[in-house]
């Protein structure tokens, strides 16, 4: 692998890495034919981010022939290469990323002003493919705004705020901080901002809905979007379905996929819009603990169709089927085991309100499909013990 990034793009790359560091501790790097994918996922697998840099982003882009190369490394190590963002613009002329297969080293060479050369040889680990399966095009609701608008909005929330709720109606959007049921109501402070549809570049609301997701991860994307000045698009359905935040331009596609809380009763209490009736749980609101059916449903449902059905504007990571089916199977199985252990607990692990929402899976092979029963899209019996259970979309 041999890539060269020049001029202002070096700073964009650096900002992308810093943005990914807000999601997880490890950076997954995968040079694909459609571009270099940099991904990260958080430990509870409720947040995923992918930066796809098309070959045009680079002044040279050569990927290894033959077998696909995938690796992961500690994100802090890569951040160290691009330490001082402010001086990057002024001093770095180009950045060369090279793979040394023999020594298992990824070399980042920064060519700077005055002939100074900074070379970082980072060791990496081979890794499985990390891709989320999602289809933003089929989401019922879509908002697009200039990053400045969203930055100014979230500015009103304290840095310590974990979750933010976004509610939409035909003409308006509300941003409010999410207050736990468990939190003492007398000590809670509620902050709410209302934005009208004309503040947005694009405002398409299918049905009145409200979603709650992690603010920290949103901020991570906004920092990047603001520096590039590109508009942020938000695709979402009802609560429980993941929200996809997207920033795109001709050479770059960024997708942040965040899990949302599924908690109708809680949201009703805080919802000032009395017109919003309590809607019946939507058909694909899976309240089941059955991970197998969920995964199959994700793959086969209209909402998250199989990779082939996706029609992204620019190259989508979901298209890549470089993982041989056996690897995908192993990955999936491992994921299932983890998830099953989790679901048997009635005690939710602390601070993990969001259930794991997806795994680094590509389309499962046919053999796997035959092993599973494909359940219908109807709502299955929920676990009545736990009203605030965050369910899988």
């Amino acid at each position: 692998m041999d890539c060269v990034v020049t001029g202002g793009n070096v700073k964009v790359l650096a900002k992308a890495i810093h943005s990914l560091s807000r999601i997880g501790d490890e950076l997954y790097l995968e040079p694909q034919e459609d571009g270099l994918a940099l991904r990260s996922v958080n430990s509870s697998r409720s947040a995923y981010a992918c930066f796809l840099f098309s070959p045009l982003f680079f002044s040279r882009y050569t990927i290894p022939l033959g077998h696909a190369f995938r690796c992961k490394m500690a994100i802090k190590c890569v951040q160290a290469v691009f330490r001082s963002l402010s001086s990057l613009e002024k001093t770095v002329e180009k950045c060369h990323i090279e793979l040394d297969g023999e020594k298992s080293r990824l070399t980042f060479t920064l060519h700077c002003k005055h002939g100074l050369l900074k070379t970082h040889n980072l060791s990496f680990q081979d890794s499985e493919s990390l891709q989320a399966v999602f289809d933003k095009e089929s989401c019922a609701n879509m908002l697009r705004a200039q990053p400045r608008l969203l930055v100014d909005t979230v500015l009103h929330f304290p840095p310590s705020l974990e979750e933010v709720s976004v509610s939409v109606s035909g003409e308006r959007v509300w941003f409010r901080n999410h207050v736990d049921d468990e939190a003492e109501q007398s000590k809670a402070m509620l902050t709410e901002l209302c934005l009208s549809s004309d503040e947005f570049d694009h405002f398409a609301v299918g049905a009145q809905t409200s979603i709650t997701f992690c603010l920290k991860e949103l901020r991570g994307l906004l920092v990047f979007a603001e520096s590039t000045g590109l508009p942020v698009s938000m695709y979402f359905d009802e609560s429980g379905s993941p929200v996809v935040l997207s920033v795109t331009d001709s050479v770059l596609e960024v997708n942040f996929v965040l899990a949302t809380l599924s908690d109708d009763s809680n949201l009703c209490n805080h919802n000032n819009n009395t017109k919003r009736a309590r809607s019946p749980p939507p058909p694909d609101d899976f309240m089941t603990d059955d991970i197998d059916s969920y995964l199959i449903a994700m793959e086969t449902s209209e909402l998250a169709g199989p990779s082939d059905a996706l029609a992204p504007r620019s190259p989508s990571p979901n298209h890549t089927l470089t993982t041989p089916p056996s690897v995908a199977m192993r990955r999936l199985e491992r994921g299932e085991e983890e998830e099953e252990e989790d679901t048997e607990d009635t005690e939710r692990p602390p601070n993990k309100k969001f259930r794991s929402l997806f795994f680094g899976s590509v389309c499962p092979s046919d053999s796997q499909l035959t092993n599973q029963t494909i359940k219908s899209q109807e709502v299955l019996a929920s676990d009545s013990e736990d009203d605030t259970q965050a369910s899988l979309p």
Partner: protein
Amino acid sequence: MPLSTQSQTEGDNYVLVASLDNVRNLSNILKAITFKDHAIFNATPNGLKVTVEDSKCLQANAFIQAEIFQEFTIKEDSVGFQVNLTVLLDCPTIFGGSTVPGVATALRMCYNGYGYPLTLFLEEGGVVTVCKVNTQEPEEPIDFEFCSTNVTNKVILQSESLKEAFSELDMTSEVLQITMSPSQPYFRLSTFGNSGNAHYDYPKDSDMMELFQCTKTQTRYKMSLLKPSTKALALSCKVSVRTDSRGFLSLQYLVRNDDGQICFVEYYCCPDEEVEEE
């Protein structure tokens, strides 16, 4: 100046009197070598030399020539004492640390000789404070025996580019390796940390490079010893890096003070001899 009237009673007994209109011309440069509490002061008619040492492996010297001072009177050939540098450097900020342009704290430093404390008269806006800092028997600074005839490599760089490298150095690396060579990579700083290794290369024809005279060497120094030199680097505009036949390192920093006058700070460091292979 009000200070001159203060010392009437003890005035005749001073062996050293040094005055500055702006104490920062002294305190800034001393802050660059404050990695240990104790400093050895040695005054000669040429000026003031302040030495700080660490574990017999690292020595830093700050030179403030007599010309820098508004008044520099010395009654003996050599006056030496040792003080706690941290305590001493608390004194100039006695009027508050903030620097307002046009307002400077003036200093008059007086020393009566062996056994007497170092007396500092600090004045700002007509208010005078007297600080007396206890002195100790001065230790003999180590002579690193670094002489120009043994120098095998000499490089003079503009500090700007070196500052960037030093601020980014991987601190998980125990050593800093300096490679000098008449051919590629010319002048290279390397670290070997947890995530891998990193190299900073300065070509000999870079416009940051003012002098380049090297034979081929590669020596390692403990990172913990060299890290304090970053303070001196930050103040300086030029730095000379020299190594001798034993691998000892000499870093000389040219520092311009607030008034544009030149002072020097020098660091000597022993090579790290633990690792001999590789």
